[in-house]
């Protein structure tokens, strides 16, 4: 009940004109990022961090979170209209969303996506309110040993869930961890792999790397493709019919649960919950043959899971200080830049800030519903801007953003360098997300392992003495065992469902 009274005062603040304006600005920018092909939420949020430098911490976090889930909404529009996912998590939406658009039902698809996203986002935030504070109290029991085990489990899940590309994902994880070693040794303080360059003493800047791998690389890829033709849809009928809404009640409910639960686990990523929710609907449905041919339940479940996931992923960030996806890691960077350390003490030390931000999640979801339902035609018009102009504009913004982080040209070079690396990796079909997550979790993992060993006096037995750490370390073992013995049937399942 304490949470409830905090939340109410949070609402009072979040609904003030000042913060409302930031939430709105964030939602608009986020939707824009989602709509623009080539800019996912991670790169988009990263680019826009410097915009918030002059805001107070609360305003900055409200705006950046709004950008984050705004992008999750916006990605749907391109998926449905041009069959290009605006961000990775919208891939599943393409399957039935675009099919619906070809049947002239683009309005219904976008409408149900907005409604599903709203319901998923709001319900997940309600669950966040209930879960986050108790979890933060519990987090004190989490010592360095448990943190290390949790992060190992997270990275193993990323690899395990990579589908057919397990070897590639493993390779990318290791490369990410190697890059994470650059910088000062966390215990001795000696520089490692810095080649005497002081810019590297603090490690490779995570945000420029994300901008490069996700932003610049995507632009390069998009630039060489012929632009997909947009479906000129009748967007006047943006409300789904009553029957369609009734059909989607179940999918939206199940999508919320799947998205929320998976959002709590670090390393799962946004794509797994959407995929899983979709598969569940297909299994549950009496007419599974409609899936892939314009089943509105497919759109509803995927989009709901996507947004429930996005809001649930805030829980490990706020309660434990662990980023569970690249975008959340960027958000965590924004917290730190603004002088706020996410983690167990955040709720105690900055209750006003946390609860205002949480209340703003509700506000933001409502704003996005308004932005997306009646105004969807406006966003669709953006897709008509010639890509060549948009591409250059976005690239300029990336460069300014990378420079603005620390007023350092070095970061700009890092971004451009990783842009080219990212482009090549994508061409070679290597997954990027494991490398990014390894890069962000790597230093935290190393630090917590070494702190654990400092505490135990160098003995690895400490992991056996601590039941939570041991249980968490069992997850990777199970994942690996599962992969070794069950790969064929798993692949078969994936292929049959996605085709």
């Amino acid at each position, binding site marked *: 009940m304490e949470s409830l009274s905090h939340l109410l005062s949070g609402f009072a603040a979040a609904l003030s004109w000042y913060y409302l304006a930031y939430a709105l600005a964030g939602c608009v920018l986020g939707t824009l990022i989602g709509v623009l092909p080539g800019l996912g939420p991670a790169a988009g949020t990263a680019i826009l961090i410097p915009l918030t430098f002059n805001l107070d*911490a609360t305003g900055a976090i409200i705006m950046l979170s709004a950008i984050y889930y705004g992008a999750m909404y916006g990605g749907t529009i391109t998926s449905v209209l041009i069959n290009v996912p605006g961000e990775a998590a919208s891939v599943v939406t393409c399957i039935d969303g675009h099919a619906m658009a070809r049947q002239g039902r683009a309005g219904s698809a976008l409408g149900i996506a907005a409604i599903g996203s709203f319901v998923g986002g709001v319900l997940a935030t309600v669950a966040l309110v209930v879960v986050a504070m108790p979890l933060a109290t519990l*987090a*004190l*029991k*989490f*010592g*360095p040993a448990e943190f290390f085990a949790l992060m190992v489990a997270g990275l193993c899940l990323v690899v395990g869930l990579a589908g057919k590309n397990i070897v590639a994902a493993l390779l990318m994880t290791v490369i990410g961890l190697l890059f994470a070693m650059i*910088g*000062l040794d*966390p*215990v*001795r*303080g*000696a*520089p490692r792999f810095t080649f*005497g360059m*002081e*810019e590297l*003493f*603090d490690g490779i800047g995570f945000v420029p790397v994300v901008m490069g791998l996700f932003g610049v690389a995507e632009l390069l890829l998009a630039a060489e493709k012929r632009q997909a033709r947009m479906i000129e849809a009748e967007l006047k009928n943006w409300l789904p019919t009553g029957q369609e809404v009734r059909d989607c009640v179940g999918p939206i409910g199940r999508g919320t649960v799947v998205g929320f639960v998976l959002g709590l686990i670090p390393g799962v990523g946004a794509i797994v919950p959407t995929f899983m929710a979709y598969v569940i609907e297909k299994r549950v449905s009496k007419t599974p043959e409609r899936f892939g041919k314009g089943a509105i339940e497919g759109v509803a479940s995927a989009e709901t899971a996507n947004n429930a996931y996005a809001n649930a992923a805030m829980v490990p960030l706020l309660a434990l*200080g662990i980023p569970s996806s690249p975008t959340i890691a960027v958000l965590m960077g924004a917290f*730190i*830049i*603004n*002088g*706020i*350390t996410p*983690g*167990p*003490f955040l709720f105690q030390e900055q209750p006003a800030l946390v609860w205002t931000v949480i209340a703003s999640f509700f506000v933001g979801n409502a704003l996005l519903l308004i932005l997306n339902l009646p105004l969807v035609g406006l966003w669709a018009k953006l897709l008509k801007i010639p890509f060549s102009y948009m591409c250059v504009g976005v690239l300029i913004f990336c460069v300014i953003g990378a420079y603005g982080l*620390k*007023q350092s040209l070095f970061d700009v070079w890092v971004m451009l360098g990783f842009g080219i690396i990212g482009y090549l990796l994508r061409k070679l079909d290597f997954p990027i997300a494991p490398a990014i997550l390894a890069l962000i979790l790597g230093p935290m993992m190393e*630090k917590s392992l070494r*702190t654990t060993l*400092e*505490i135990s*006096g160098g003995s690895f037995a400490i992991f056996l003495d601590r039941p939570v750490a041991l249980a968490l370390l069992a997850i990777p073992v199970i994942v690996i065992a599962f992969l070794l013995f069950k790969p064929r049937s798993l692949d078969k399942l994936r292929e049959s469902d996605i085709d």
Partner: protein
Amino acid sequence: MFIRRRTLLAASAATAIAPPALAQNYPRRAVQLVVAFPAGGSTDVGARILAGLAEKDFGQPITVVNKGGAGGQIGFTEIARARPDGYTLGFLNLPGMNTITLDPERKAVFTIDSFIPIVNQVLDPGFIWVKGDSPYKTLAELTDAAKKNPGKISACTTGILSDDHLAILMVQEATGAEFRIVHFDGGAQQLTGVLGGHVDVAFDNVGSVFKRVGTEIRGLAVTDVVRSKFLPQVPCTKELGLTTVISSSTRGVGAPKGTPADICKVVETAFLKAINSPEMKEKMDAVGLALKPMVGAEYAKYYTDLQAQAKKYTEWALKMR
């Protein structure tokens, strides 16, 4: 290309004929105040309060620029390499800056002589604390236990070769205790580590946790010659007889070597006035940062004395690793 070269020529000609920076026309434009730690940290908080208050008398904007990273090394390098014209000033963090120059592995390009200390702002004393229900009621009980069971009691710092690390070494030297040293990344991790029962004692600073002292946290000692005004109930190390255990995080404004003395004087006057103002005291009290204004010979002596003290313990720490 042609145009660019011409602009460059014109620009260099302009610099050549510009009069040397003299105190009577200093400052003529905005001054950068480099903080070697990220925005929001306690150095940054103090710097922003100082910049805001000093601007009025200074007559020009004072822009705080955060160049965080590598325990301050990146920012300190930036200050040391800046043109000594008075338009780049920086915060000097002691003893963090000293230990960087003293650790050969860090390959620092600056020494403490690369800076002119102008005016000190803050002295945040070290603070030794345990969890509220810890068996150790006093510092003596803790050090006795750590002497009887060497290496069994864990003590955490806010980073390797930080002031807290040096403070642990000072306590070990003075009492014969032997701790198991655990390095955390900062105050938040220390809090989780000790309150979660993973580490026994924290070596910290008053400013980071003074608001929590009470049931949650038991203060054992403040590593200073006097008690802290924020924690009047906690004894200081001097009164406990540990006269060599004096450690703090101290920071003030300095300029790169070669900055003209008359310019330094202008900075000193404006900043000192701000530091002594009642608004400064009020704002710093709210965040638990104790002011310690020092200028001229006093600050210079503190600066060199601290280097000698830091040298001794850094060498000791380096031998241990």
